[in-house]
């Protein structure tokens, strides 16, 4: 188990480094000069040049990359030139907002997706099953930013039920929850569909399993069989799915954060790219890709914890 996790992690590190190398190469060819953008219209040529030197931009790309990489391993992602604040701090300040958003999205997708998938499986072939099936496909198909804009239009602008912008008042949990509902719905709605579908499929498969027949033959109630014996197995693929899903949710959180003017990693990167704040871009992308890879490893470990069979196969 441990060896497996370490191996996965090792591969993850390689993937992340290749990804960062690619990002560096891309960032290097982006037109536009971060130094002159940062200083604004009143900067003199000398100031721009000295800032460039401080940002390390006068160095060749591989030196920039090697420097970045060496210090990244020590947990130092460099400093933002203008404010002099550590990039890691800036990124980690924003991370909780995105994590909350993703957690909210996962809550939506799990709280709606698992029951819907379950109901669809239990009522297999019936009208309810069909409706759930079509709805699942539909929410998967519609892009999250369209959902974001429409839900903003309907619930925040027209009905005024929920706040439109921001992450809520700091320290006020109710206000933060209220601000979380719409953005997390926009990010998570598609995943309601994915989860409903996968739970339905795996529930149907599980209900056919012989241990379910055993349970029935022992006179266990259908409720216990469905929700305790079968569901426990049927939700397992959900975890792998969510492991992959978190990467996608990170992506769609960019839109949700822009539409709902929420702080977060996505917005941070979006804004940093537009002003060529490279330390922030590379730092934030590094943190998110590491996060993504780690999440996948964790998903595997969690599955191992929940499914003794998988655990056995790792030993």
């Amino acid at each position, binding site marked *: 188990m441990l060896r497996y996790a370490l191996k996965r992690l090792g591969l993850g590190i390689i993937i992340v480094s290749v990804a960062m190398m690619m990002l560096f190469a891309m960032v290097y060819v982006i037109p536009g000069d971060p130094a002159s953008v940062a200083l604004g219209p009143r900067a003199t040529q000398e100031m721009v040049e000295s800032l460039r030197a401080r940002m390390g931009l006068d160095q060749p790309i591989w030196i920039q990359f090697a420097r970045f990489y060496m210090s990244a391993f020590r947990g130092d992602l460099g400093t933002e030139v203008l404010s002099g604040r550590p990039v890691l701090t800036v990124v980690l300040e924003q991370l909780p907002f995105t994590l909350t958003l993703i957690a909210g999205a996962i809550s939506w997708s799990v709280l709606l997706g698992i029951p819907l998938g379950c109901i669809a499986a239990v009522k297999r072939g019936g009208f309810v099953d069909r409706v759930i099936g079509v709805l699942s496909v539909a929410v998967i198909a519609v892009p999250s930013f369209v959902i974001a804009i429409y839900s903003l239009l309907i619930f925040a602008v027209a009905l005024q039920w929920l706040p439109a912008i921001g992450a809520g008042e700091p320290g006020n949990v109710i206000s933060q929850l209220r601000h979380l509902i719409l953005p997390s719905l926009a990010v998570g709605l598609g995943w309601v569909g994915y989860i409903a579908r996968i739970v339905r499929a795996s529930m149907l498969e599980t209900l056919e399993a*012989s*241990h379910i027949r*055993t*349970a029935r*033959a*022992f*006179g266990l109630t259908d409720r216990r069989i469905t929700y305790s014996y079968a569901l426990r197995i049927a939700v397992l693929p959900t975890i792998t799915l969510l492991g992959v899903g978190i990467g996608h949710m990170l992506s769609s959180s960019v839109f949700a954060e822009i539409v709902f003017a929420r702080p977060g990693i996505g917005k941070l990167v979006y804004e940093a790219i537009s002003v060529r704040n490279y330390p922030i871009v590379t730092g934030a992308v590094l943190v998110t890709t590491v996060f993504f890879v780690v999440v996948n490893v964790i998903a595997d470990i969690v599955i191992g914890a*929940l*499914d*003794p069979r998988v655990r056995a196969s790792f030993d």
Partner: protein
Amino acid sequence: MTVLDIRDLSVDFATESGALQALRKVSMSVPENRIVGVVGESGCGKSTLINAILGLLADNGEVTSGEILFEGTHDLTTLAGTAMRDLRGQKIATVFQDPMGALNPVLSVGRQMRDIQYRSNLSRREKDARSIEMLRKVRIPDAEQRLVQFPHEFSGGMKQRIAIAMALMMEPSLLIADEPTTALDATLEVTIIELLKELQQQIGCSVLFISHHLGVIAELCDEMIVMYAGEVVESGTTRDVFHNARHPYTRKLLACDPARLTHRARRLPTIPGTLPDLRNRPEGCVFQARCELADATCSRMPPDEEIAPGHLARCWHTEASVMIGAGA
């Protein structure tokens, strides 16, 4: 007293290409404290029979005629869902064929054994004590420690013993054993059979033992029925059927039983021909297509000919059939 009495039971399945008659006019009975064997090829309707008794027919299955009397009073075909469920596990217990898949892989053995005692008023601790007692009875070592383990941590033989322990935990009056030894190797098979026999005598229940292994049937069962294509073609005491089989199918089955040869094999050698299409049953005898004695008479439904008291064969040619397999 008869624990289980099945009369004229027919079961149909609705399929896309029409109704499939899985059981036709099946009659049989399991007397108190006896072991009754059911033998037949795959697809002969054994599983449907069990599911019909347990009330676990698939959605598209339907009992079209007959009754299943349990302990003389309840007709299981008409029993309401909850009443039926109360019998399952309590009065009628089952051990299934596949020990690997029979236990829920993500719940501990202890939890599963506790769950099936949900009707009792015992405390959690007392339930676990009862589980341990049963595990000891089926000779699982270190029963206490093993209670918290998951099914994959047990060997196949142990799993089947756990399944038996679970089945007998509530001291049922009828134990249905659905090929409980098929997936095990030969030495294990013997110990399981002996264990079953011993526990049956201890508890004093009846057993409906399904197998396609004639040797096991011969060793274990007091009575047996032979099924073919959803019909009971022959039934009687084990002794009668083995020594004086009168249905051509039974005779062929016995003739090619590897157990009568020198070594055991797990699969029956095939009889020439194939099972009839159950969506489109032939008129009359169900075996006629594969029977060398078949003639015009066979296109009418054969009677259940009584060969000896309690020994029936559904055939027009019970006299002539003694010739079959003689030369084999």
